[in-house]
Protein backbone atom coordinates (compact mmCIF):
# COMPACT_ATOMS: atom_id res chain seq x y z
CA UNK A 1 0.00 0.00 0.00
CA UNK A 2 1.36 3.38 -0.93
CA UNK A 3 1.86 5.89 1.83
CA UNK A 4 0.56 9.40 1.29
CA UNK A 5 4.17 10.57 0.92
CA UNK A 6 4.74 8.00 -1.82
CA UNK A 7 1.53 9.08 -3.42
CA UNK A 8 2.50 12.74 -3.30
CA UNK A 9 5.87 11.91 -4.85
CA UNK A 10 4.11 9.99 -7.57
CA UNK A 11 1.77 12.88 -8.17
CA UNK A 12 4.69 15.30 -8.35
CA UNK A 13 6.56 13.04 -10.76
CA UNK A 14 3.47 12.74 -12.88
CA UNK A 15 3.23 16.49 -12.97
CA UNK A 16 6.86 16.71 -14.08
CA UNK A 17 6.22 14.29 -16.90
CA UNK A 18 3.18 16.21 -17.98
CA UNK A 19 4.98 19.50 -17.61
CA UNK A 20 7.92 18.32 -19.74
CA UNK A 21 5.73 19.00 -22.73
CA UNK A 22 6.09 22.68 -22.01
CA UNK A 23 9.91 22.62 -21.80
CA UNK A 24 10.43 23.24 -18.12
CA UNK A 25 13.48 25.02 -16.82
CA UNK A 26 15.49 23.78 -13.82
CA UNK A 27 13.76 26.08 -11.39
CA UNK A 28 10.38 24.90 -12.62
CA UNK A 29 11.45 21.28 -12.34
CA UNK A 30 12.51 21.86 -8.75
CA UNK A 31 9.19 23.56 -8.09
CA UNK A 32 7.41 20.47 -9.34
CA UNK A 33 8.98 18.46 -6.53
CA UNK A 34 7.09 20.58 -4.07
CA UNK A 35 3.49 20.13 -3.02
CA UNK A 36 1.54 21.94 -5.64
CA UNK A 37 -1.42 24.07 -4.59
CA UNK A 38 -3.47 26.00 -7.11
CA UNK A 39 -5.54 28.99 -6.07
CA UNK A 40 -7.87 29.91 -8.91
CA UNK A 41 -9.82 33.14 -8.58
CA UNK A 42 -12.57 34.94 -10.39
CA UNK A 43 -13.26 38.41 -9.02
CA UNK A 44 -16.59 38.49 -10.85
CA UNK A 45 -17.85 35.25 -9.30
CA UNK A 46 -20.12 37.10 -6.88
CA UNK A 47 -22.09 40.19 -7.76
CA UNK A 48 -22.00 43.26 -5.54
CA UNK A 49 -25.17 41.96 -3.87
CA UNK A 50 -23.49 38.70 -3.02
CA UNK A 51 -25.17 36.52 -5.65
CA UNK A 52 -23.06 33.71 -7.06
CA UNK A 53 -22.84 33.70 -10.84
CA UNK A 54 -23.15 29.92 -11.18
CA UNK A 55 -22.25 29.94 -14.86
CA UNK A 56 -18.74 31.06 -13.98
CA UNK A 57 -18.10 28.24 -11.49
CA UNK A 58 -17.45 25.56 -14.13
CA UNK A 59 -14.96 27.84 -15.89
CA UNK A 60 -13.17 28.52 -12.62
CA UNK A 61 -12.99 24.79 -11.91
CA UNK A 62 -11.56 24.11 -15.37
CA UNK A 63 -8.97 26.81 -14.90
CA UNK A 64 -7.93 25.38 -11.52
CA UNK A 65 -7.65 21.82 -12.80
CA UNK A 66 -5.82 22.91 -15.95
CA UNK A 67 -3.26 24.79 -13.87
CA UNK A 68 -2.85 21.88 -11.51
CA UNK A 69 -2.37 19.20 -14.14
CA UNK A 70 -0.77 21.28 -16.88
CA UNK A 71 -3.44 20.02 -19.26
CA UNK A 72 -5.71 22.49 -20.98
CA UNK A 73 -8.39 20.01 -21.95
CA UNK A 74 -10.57 19.40 -18.87
CA UNK A 75 -11.51 15.85 -19.77
CA UNK A 76 -7.87 14.81 -20.23
CA UNK A 77 -6.98 16.54 -16.97
CA UNK A 78 -9.67 14.70 -15.03
CA UNK A 79 -8.54 11.40 -16.47
CA UNK A 80 -5.19 12.02 -14.79
CA UNK A 81 -6.82 12.70 -11.44
CA UNK A 82 -9.45 9.98 -11.03
CA UNK A 83 -9.21 6.23 -11.62
CA UNK A 84 -11.48 4.42 -14.05
CA UNK A 85 -14.05 1.92 -12.85
CA UNK A 86 -13.92 3.04 -9.23
CA UNK A 87 -16.58 4.70 -7.12
CA UNK A 88 -15.72 8.34 -6.59
CA UNK A 89 -16.96 9.79 -3.31
CA UNK A 90 -17.23 13.53 -2.86
CA UNK A 91 -17.31 14.68 0.76
CA UNK A 92 -19.10 18.01 0.80
CA UNK A 93 -19.75 20.28 3.77
CA UNK A 94 -23.28 21.47 4.43
CA UNK A 95 -22.95 22.43 8.06
CA UNK A 96 -23.21 26.19 7.75
CA UNK A 97 -26.23 26.35 5.47
CA UNK A 98 -26.35 27.43 1.86
CA UNK A 99 -24.10 30.54 1.92
CA UNK A 100 -21.12 28.67 3.32
CA UNK A 101 -21.79 25.10 2.30
CA UNK A 102 -19.95 23.45 -0.57
CA UNK A 103 -21.68 25.22 -3.42
CA UNK A 104 -23.99 22.98 -5.39
CA UNK A 105 -22.81 24.60 -8.62
CA UNK A 106 -19.27 23.39 -7.88
CA UNK A 107 -20.35 19.85 -7.05
CA UNK A 108 -22.44 19.66 -10.20
CA UNK A 109 -19.58 20.98 -12.33
CA UNK A 110 -17.29 18.27 -10.94
CA UNK A 111 -19.93 15.60 -11.55
CA UNK A 112 -20.18 16.76 -15.13
CA UNK A 113 -16.43 16.59 -15.70
CA UNK A 114 -16.16 13.20 -14.01
CA UNK A 115 -18.75 11.77 -16.35
CA UNK A 116 -17.03 13.29 -19.36
CA UNK A 117 -13.84 11.62 -18.15
CA UNK A 118 -15.56 8.23 -18.18
CA UNK A 119 -16.94 7.88 -14.68
CA UNK A 120 -20.44 6.45 -14.77
CA UNK A 121 -23.22 8.28 -12.90
CA UNK A 122 -23.68 5.25 -10.62
CA UNK A 123 -20.02 5.53 -9.66
CA UNK A 124 -20.39 9.00 -8.16
CA UNK A 125 -21.47 9.52 -4.55
CA UNK A 126 -21.94 12.95 -2.99
CA UNK A 127 -22.10 12.60 0.77
CA UNK A 128 -22.26 14.35 4.11
CA UNK A 129 -23.03 13.22 7.64
CA UNK A 130 -26.59 14.54 7.84
CA UNK A 131 -29.32 14.52 5.26
CA UNK A 132 -30.65 17.79 6.67
CA UNK A 133 -27.31 19.53 6.08
CA UNK A 134 -27.38 18.45 2.44
CA UNK A 135 -30.93 19.63 1.95
CA UNK A 136 -30.36 22.97 3.63
CA UNK A 137 -27.38 23.48 1.34
CA UNK A 138 -29.64 22.99 -1.67
CA UNK A 139 -28.76 19.39 -2.56
CA UNK A 140 -31.41 16.89 -3.63
CA UNK A 141 -31.23 13.52 -1.94
CA UNK A 142 -30.89 10.57 -4.30
CA UNK A 143 -30.31 6.92 -3.46
CA UNK A 144 -30.79 5.41 -6.92
CA UNK A 145 -27.62 3.40 -7.60
CA UNK A 146 -27.90 3.84 -11.34
CA UNK A 147 -27.62 7.62 -10.98
CA UNK A 148 -25.40 10.05 -9.10
CA UNK A 149 -26.22 9.49 -5.46
CA UNK A 150 -26.49 12.19 -2.83
CA UNK A 151 -26.70 10.69 0.63
CA UNK A 152 -26.24 11.33 4.32
CA UNK A 153 -24.86 8.91 6.87
CA UNK A 154 -27.99 9.30 8.99
CA UNK A 155 -30.17 7.88 6.21
CA UNK A 156 -31.55 4.35 6.25
CA UNK A 157 -29.09 1.77 5.00
CA UNK A 158 -25.91 3.66 5.88
CA UNK A 159 -24.90 4.63 9.42
CA UNK A 160 -21.55 4.03 11.07
CA UNK A 161 -19.26 1.03 11.32
CA UNK A 162 -19.71 -0.82 14.59
CA UNK A 163 -16.03 -1.61 14.86
CA UNK A 164 -13.88 1.42 15.63
CA UNK A 165 -10.71 2.29 13.77
CA UNK A 166 -7.79 3.95 15.50
CA UNK A 167 -4.59 5.90 15.13
CA UNK A 168 -2.63 7.62 17.88
CA UNK A 169 -5.01 9.19 20.33
CA UNK A 170 -8.21 8.63 18.41
CA UNK A 171 -10.57 5.74 17.99
CA UNK A 172 -13.55 6.43 15.76
CA UNK A 173 -16.44 4.81 13.98
CA UNK A 174 -16.39 5.80 10.32
CA UNK A 175 -19.45 6.28 8.16
CA UNK A 176 -20.20 3.27 6.03
CA UNK A 177 -20.43 5.64 3.07
CA UNK A 178 -16.67 6.06 3.29
CA UNK A 179 -15.79 2.48 4.15
CA UNK A 180 -18.26 0.60 1.94
CA UNK A 181 -19.46 2.89 -0.83
CA UNK A 182 -16.38 4.81 -1.97
CA UNK A 183 -13.07 3.76 -3.52
CA UNK A 184 -11.55 7.18 -4.12
CA UNK A 185 -12.51 10.31 -2.22
CA UNK A 186 -12.40 13.87 -3.48
CA UNK A 187 -12.72 16.28 -0.60
CA UNK A 188 -14.86 19.38 -1.17
CA UNK A 189 -14.42 21.36 2.05
CA UNK A 190 -15.31 24.98 2.75
CA UNK A 191 -12.73 27.44 4.04
CA UNK A 192 -13.87 28.90 7.36
CA UNK A 193 -12.68 30.36 10.59
CA UNK A 194 -13.11 27.78 13.35
CA UNK A 195 -13.91 28.54 16.95
CA UNK A 196 -11.45 25.92 18.25
CA UNK A 197 -9.01 24.85 15.54
CA UNK A 198 -8.44 28.34 14.11
CA UNK A 199 -9.45 27.33 10.62
CA UNK A 200 -11.34 24.43 9.13
CA UNK A 201 -10.73 23.31 5.58
CA UNK A 202 -9.46 20.08 4.03
CA UNK A 203 -8.25 17.87 6.89
CA UNK A 204 -10.98 18.80 9.33
CA UNK A 205 -13.77 18.18 6.85
CA UNK A 206 -13.53 14.50 7.71
CA UNK A 207 -14.91 15.16 11.16
CA UNK A 208 -18.08 14.77 9.14
CA UNK A 209 -17.13 11.17 8.41
CA UNK A 210 -17.19 9.91 11.99
CA UNK A 211 -19.81 9.21 14.60
CA UNK A 212 -18.61 11.32 17.53
CA UNK A 213 -16.70 14.34 16.21
CA UNK A 214 -17.15 16.13 19.55
CA UNK A 215 -14.55 13.84 21.07
CA UNK A 216 -11.87 15.08 18.67
CA UNK A 217 -12.22 18.78 19.42
CA UNK A 218 -10.04 18.92 22.53
CA UNK A 219 -6.83 20.98 22.55
CA UNK A 220 -7.80 22.93 19.43
CA UNK A 221 -8.44 19.64 17.58
CA UNK A 222 -4.79 18.71 17.96
CA UNK A 223 -3.85 15.91 17.49
CA UNK A 224 -7.45 14.89 16.69
CA UNK A 225 -7.39 16.20 13.11
CA UNK A 226 -4.00 14.69 12.27
CA UNK A 227 -4.68 11.36 13.94
CA UNK A 228 -8.05 10.99 12.23
CA UNK A 229 -6.55 11.58 8.80
CA UNK A 230 -3.89 8.94 9.44
CA UNK A 231 -6.36 6.12 9.92
CA UNK A 232 -5.95 3.86 6.88
CA UNK A 233 -9.68 3.62 6.19
CA UNK A 234 -9.58 7.31 5.37
CA UNK A 235 -5.96 7.86 4.35
CA UNK A 236 -6.02 5.18 1.68
CA UNK A 237 -9.06 6.69 -0.03
CA UNK A 238 -8.73 10.45 0.41
CA UNK A 239 -6.80 11.51 -2.69
CA UNK A 240 -7.66 14.99 -3.84
CA UNK A 241 -9.04 18.26 -2.52
CA UNK A 242 -11.07 20.88 -4.35
CA UNK A 243 -11.49 23.46 -1.66
CA UNK A 244 -14.46 25.80 -1.90
CA UNK A 245 -13.32 29.28 -0.96
CA UNK A 246 -15.88 31.04 -3.10
CA UNK A 247 -17.48 32.35 0.08
CA UNK A 248 -16.04 32.11 3.56
CA UNK A 249 -16.27 33.20 7.19
CA UNK A 250 -13.25 34.98 8.65
CA UNK A 251 -14.56 35.23 12.21
CA UNK A 252 -17.13 33.40 14.34
CA UNK A 253 -17.04 30.14 12.34
CA UNK A 254 -17.64 27.39 11.63
CA UNK A 255 -21.34 28.33 11.63
CA UNK A 256 -22.75 30.99 9.34
CA UNK A 257 -22.13 34.48 10.65
CA UNK A 258 -23.37 36.86 7.96
CA UNK A 259 -21.61 39.76 9.65
CA UNK A 260 -18.29 38.01 8.96
CA UNK A 261 -19.04 36.66 5.51
CA UNK A 262 -16.54 37.36 2.78
CA UNK A 263 -16.07 36.34 -0.81
CA UNK A 264 -12.55 35.14 -1.66
CA UNK A 265 -14.06 33.94 -4.99
CA UNK A 266 -11.52 31.14 -5.12
CA UNK A 267 -11.03 27.42 -5.49
CA UNK A 268 -7.98 25.83 -3.87
CA UNK A 269 -6.95 22.47 -5.29
CA UNK A 270 -4.26 19.88 -4.79
CA UNK A 271 -3.25 16.49 -3.47
CA UNK A 272 -1.55 17.69 -0.28
CA UNK A 273 -4.22 18.54 2.33
CA UNK A 274 -1.73 20.08 4.75
CA UNK A 275 -0.42 22.45 2.10
CA UNK A 276 -3.98 23.30 1.16
CA UNK A 277 -4.95 23.98 4.77
CA UNK A 278 -1.82 26.07 5.22
CA UNK A 279 -2.76 28.12 2.15
CA UNK A 280 -6.34 28.57 3.35
CA UNK A 281 -5.19 29.52 6.83
CA UNK A 282 -3.00 32.29 5.42
CA UNK A 283 -5.93 33.61 3.39
CA UNK A 284 -8.09 33.80 6.52
CA UNK A 285 -5.29 35.54 8.44
CA UNK A 286 -4.89 38.11 5.68
CA UNK A 287 -8.60 38.84 5.70
CA UNK A 288 -8.63 39.15 9.49
CA UNK A 289 -5.76 41.61 9.35
CA UNK A 290 -7.57 43.58 6.67
CA UNK A 291 -10.64 43.77 8.94
CA UNK A 292 -8.56 44.86 11.93
CA UNK A 293 -8.91 41.57 13.79
CA UNK A 294 -6.08 39.95 15.76
CA UNK A 295 -4.31 36.84 14.49
CA UNK A 296 -5.84 33.50 15.28
CA UNK A 297 -2.92 32.67 17.54
CA UNK A 298 -3.41 35.80 19.61
CA UNK A 299 -7.07 34.87 20.11
CA UNK A 300 -6.00 31.53 21.57
CA UNK A 301 -6.64 29.57 18.38
CA UNK A 302 -3.27 28.71 16.91
CA UNK A 303 -3.47 26.25 14.03
CA UNK A 304 -1.16 23.76 15.72
CA UNK A 305 -2.94 20.87 14.03
CA UNK A 306 -1.05 21.77 10.86
CA UNK A 307 2.30 21.28 12.59
CA UNK A 308 1.17 17.93 13.91
CA UNK A 309 -0.22 16.84 10.54
CA UNK A 310 3.15 17.54 8.93
CA UNK A 311 5.32 15.95 11.63
CA UNK A 312 7.24 12.71 11.26
CA UNK A 313 4.55 10.68 12.99
CA UNK A 314 1.76 11.78 10.65
CA UNK A 315 3.45 12.91 7.42
CA UNK A 316 0.16 13.99 5.84
CA UNK A 317 1.83 16.73 3.83
CA UNK A 318 3.80 19.89 4.30
CA UNK A 319 3.12 23.11 6.19
CA UNK A 320 6.47 24.53 5.11
CA UNK A 321 5.88 27.33 2.59
CA UNK A 322 9.28 26.70 1.02
CA UNK A 323 8.01 23.24 0.10
CA UNK A 324 4.74 24.45 -1.33
CA UNK A 325 4.54 25.36 -4.99
CA UNK A 326 1.73 27.89 -4.93
CA UNK A 327 0.19 28.75 -8.29
CA UNK A 328 -2.29 31.59 -8.37
CA UNK A 329 -4.33 31.78 -11.55
Amino acid sequence: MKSRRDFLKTAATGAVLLGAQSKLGLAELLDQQKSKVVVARDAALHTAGGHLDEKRVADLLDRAIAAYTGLDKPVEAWKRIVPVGKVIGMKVNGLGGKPIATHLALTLAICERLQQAGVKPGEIVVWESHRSDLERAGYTISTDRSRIRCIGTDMDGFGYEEKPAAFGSVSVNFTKILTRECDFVINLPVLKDHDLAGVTFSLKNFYGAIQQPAELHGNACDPGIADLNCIPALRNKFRFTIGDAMSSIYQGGPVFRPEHLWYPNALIVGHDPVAIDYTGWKMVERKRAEMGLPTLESTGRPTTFLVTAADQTHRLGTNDPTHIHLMEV
Partner: protein
Amino acid sequence: MKTCSMKSLLVFAAIIFAVTAVGTGCKKKGPEPFPKSGAVAGWEKTSETRVYAAKDLYQYIDGDAEQYISAGVVSTSTSDYKYQGQLEATVDVHTMGSAEGARKILETGTKDAKPIQLGDAGVAYAQSIIFRKGAALVRIVAYESTPDTAQALLALARGVEAKL
Protein backbone atom coordinates in the same frame (compact mmCIF):
# COMPACT_ATOMS: atom_id res chain seq x y z
CA MET B 1 -62.89 7.99 57.55
CA LYS B 2 -64.14 8.49 54.03
CA THR B 3 -62.20 11.84 53.73
CA CYS B 4 -59.09 10.16 55.00
CA SER B 5 -59.41 7.37 52.41
CA MET B 6 -59.85 9.87 49.61
CA LYS B 7 -56.76 11.75 50.77
CA SER B 8 -54.76 8.53 50.87
CA LEU B 9 -55.93 7.70 47.39
CA LEU B 10 -54.86 11.09 46.06
CA VAL B 11 -51.45 10.85 47.74
CA PHE B 12 -51.00 7.35 46.32
CA ALA B 13 -51.97 8.54 42.82
CA ALA B 14 -49.56 11.46 43.09
CA ILE B 15 -46.72 9.10 44.08
CA ILE B 16 -47.51 6.75 41.19
CA PHE B 17 -47.57 9.69 38.76
CA ALA B 18 -44.27 11.03 40.07
CA VAL B 19 -42.56 7.62 39.88
CA THR B 20 -43.88 7.06 36.37
CA ALA B 21 -42.73 10.49 35.26
CA VAL B 22 -39.20 9.98 36.57
CA GLY B 23 -39.01 6.46 35.16
CA THR B 24 -39.90 7.57 31.66
CA GLY B 25 -37.70 10.65 31.62
CA CYS B 26 -40.77 12.84 31.33
CA LYS B 27 -39.95 16.52 31.46
CA LYS B 28 -42.17 19.50 31.60
CA LYS B 29 -42.30 20.73 28.04
CA GLY B 30 -41.94 24.47 27.63
CA PRO B 31 -43.96 26.45 25.15
CA GLU B 32 -43.03 26.08 21.49
CA PRO B 33 -40.93 29.19 20.81
CA PHE B 34 -41.25 29.02 17.03
CA PRO B 35 -44.05 31.03 15.42
CA LYS B 36 -46.23 29.04 13.06
CA SER B 37 -46.49 29.95 9.38
CA GLY B 38 -48.33 33.22 9.00
CA ALA B 39 -48.16 34.10 12.69
CA VAL B 40 -45.63 36.77 11.77
CA ALA B 41 -46.57 38.60 8.58
CA GLY B 42 -44.75 37.23 5.56
CA TRP B 43 -42.93 34.45 7.41
CA GLU B 44 -43.45 30.77 6.73
CA LYS B 45 -42.00 28.01 8.93
CA THR B 46 -40.36 25.71 6.40
CA SER B 47 -38.98 22.87 8.50
CA GLU B 48 -39.77 20.72 11.45
CA THR B 49 -38.28 21.87 14.73
CA ARG B 50 -35.07 19.98 15.44
CA VAL B 51 -33.87 19.64 19.02
CA TYR B 52 -30.30 18.87 20.09
CA ALA B 53 -29.29 18.00 23.64
CA ALA B 54 -26.05 19.62 24.78
CA LYS B 55 -24.09 16.42 24.16
CA ASP B 56 -25.30 16.28 20.55
CA LEU B 57 -24.83 19.95 19.72
CA TYR B 58 -21.66 19.24 17.73
CA GLN B 59 -23.83 17.44 15.20
CA TYR B 60 -25.52 20.72 14.46
CA ILE B 61 -22.89 23.43 14.83
CA ASP B 62 -19.61 21.55 15.03
CA GLY B 63 -16.93 23.40 17.00
CA ASP B 64 -19.22 26.34 17.70
CA ALA B 65 -20.93 24.04 20.21
CA GLU B 66 -18.09 24.46 22.66
CA GLN B 67 -18.93 28.04 23.64
CA TYR B 68 -22.54 27.08 24.35
CA ILE B 69 -21.55 24.01 26.33
CA SER B 70 -19.10 26.10 28.36
CA ALA B 71 -21.91 28.55 29.07
CA GLY B 72 -24.20 25.75 30.27
CA VAL B 73 -26.50 25.04 27.33
CA VAL B 74 -29.16 22.45 28.12
CA SER B 75 -30.60 22.06 24.64
CA THR B 76 -30.88 23.84 21.31
CA SER B 77 -33.97 23.97 19.13
CA THR B 78 -33.85 25.14 15.56
CA SER B 79 -36.19 25.72 12.68
CA ASP B 80 -35.97 27.19 9.20
CA TYR B 81 -38.14 30.00 7.88
CA LYS B 82 -38.78 31.78 4.63
CA TYR B 83 -39.93 35.36 4.15
CA GLN B 84 -42.32 36.04 1.28
CA GLY B 85 -41.14 32.85 -0.39
CA GLN B 86 -37.66 34.25 -0.95
CA LEU B 87 -35.52 35.15 2.02
CA GLU B 88 -34.35 32.09 3.95
CA ALA B 89 -33.52 32.27 7.64
CA THR B 90 -32.80 29.98 10.56
CA VAL B 91 -33.95 30.49 14.13
CA ASP B 92 -31.88 28.88 16.89
CA VAL B 93 -33.18 28.90 20.45
CA HIS B 94 -30.51 27.87 22.92
CA THR B 95 -31.95 27.00 26.32
CA MET B 96 -29.20 27.70 28.80
CA GLY B 97 -28.99 26.50 32.40
CA SER B 98 -29.38 30.06 33.61
CA ALA B 99 -29.80 33.64 32.44
CA GLU B 100 -26.12 34.14 33.17
CA GLY B 101 -25.23 31.61 30.46
CA ALA B 102 -27.33 33.47 27.92
CA ARG B 103 -25.72 36.75 28.96
CA LYS B 104 -22.25 35.26 28.53
CA ILE B 105 -22.93 34.23 24.92
CA LEU B 106 -24.55 37.54 24.00
CA GLU B 107 -21.57 39.47 25.31
CA THR B 108 -19.24 37.73 22.86
CA GLY B 109 -20.74 39.83 20.04
CA THR B 110 -18.49 42.16 18.05
CA LYS B 111 -18.29 45.93 18.26
CA ASP B 112 -20.21 46.44 15.02
CA ALA B 113 -23.36 45.03 16.63
CA LYS B 114 -26.23 47.48 17.05
CA PRO B 115 -28.14 47.25 20.36
CA ILE B 116 -31.89 46.63 20.02
CA GLN B 117 -34.79 46.54 22.47
CA LEU B 118 -35.70 42.88 22.54
CA GLY B 119 -36.11 40.48 25.45
CA ASP B 120 -33.69 41.28 28.26
CA ALA B 121 -31.05 42.48 25.79
CA GLY B 122 -30.30 42.10 22.12
CA VAL B 123 -28.10 43.12 19.24
CA ALA B 124 -28.59 43.27 15.50
CA TYR B 125 -26.33 42.99 12.48
CA ALA B 126 -27.33 43.48 8.86
CA GLN B 127 -28.37 39.84 8.49
CA SER B 128 -28.78 38.54 12.02
CA ILE B 129 -30.30 39.25 15.40
CA ILE B 130 -29.25 37.84 18.74
CA PHE B 131 -31.18 38.36 21.94
CA ARG B 132 -31.66 36.80 25.33
CA LYS B 133 -34.71 36.43 27.51
CA GLY B 134 -34.28 34.67 30.82
CA ALA B 135 -32.29 31.53 30.15
CA ALA B 136 -33.05 31.57 26.43
CA LEU B 137 -30.52 32.82 23.90
CA VAL B 138 -31.99 33.30 20.43
CA ARG B 139 -30.02 33.72 17.24
CA ILE B 140 -31.80 34.45 13.96
CA VAL B 141 -29.74 34.44 10.80
CA ALA B 142 -30.84 35.36 7.27
CA TYR B 143 -29.01 33.86 4.33
CA GLU B 144 -29.27 36.85 2.07
CA SER B 145 -29.08 40.59 2.32
CA THR B 146 -32.08 42.35 0.82
CA PRO B 147 -33.60 45.77 1.47
CA ASP B 148 -36.24 44.04 3.63
CA THR B 149 -33.94 41.76 5.59
CA ALA B 150 -33.41 43.86 8.72
CA GLN B 151 -37.07 44.72 9.24
CA ALA B 152 -38.25 41.22 8.42
CA LEU B 153 -35.80 39.68 10.89
CA LEU B 154 -36.85 42.08 13.59
CA ALA B 155 -40.50 41.14 13.10
CA LEU B 156 -39.66 37.44 13.30
CA ALA B 157 -37.52 38.03 16.38
CA ARG B 158 -40.41 39.80 18.08
CA GLY B 159 -42.61 36.84 17.20
CA VAL B 160 -40.18 34.44 18.85
CA GLU B 161 -39.69 36.71 21.85
CA ALA B 162 -43.43 36.81 22.47
CA LYS B 163 -43.53 33.02 22.70
CA LEU B 164 -40.66 32.65 25.17
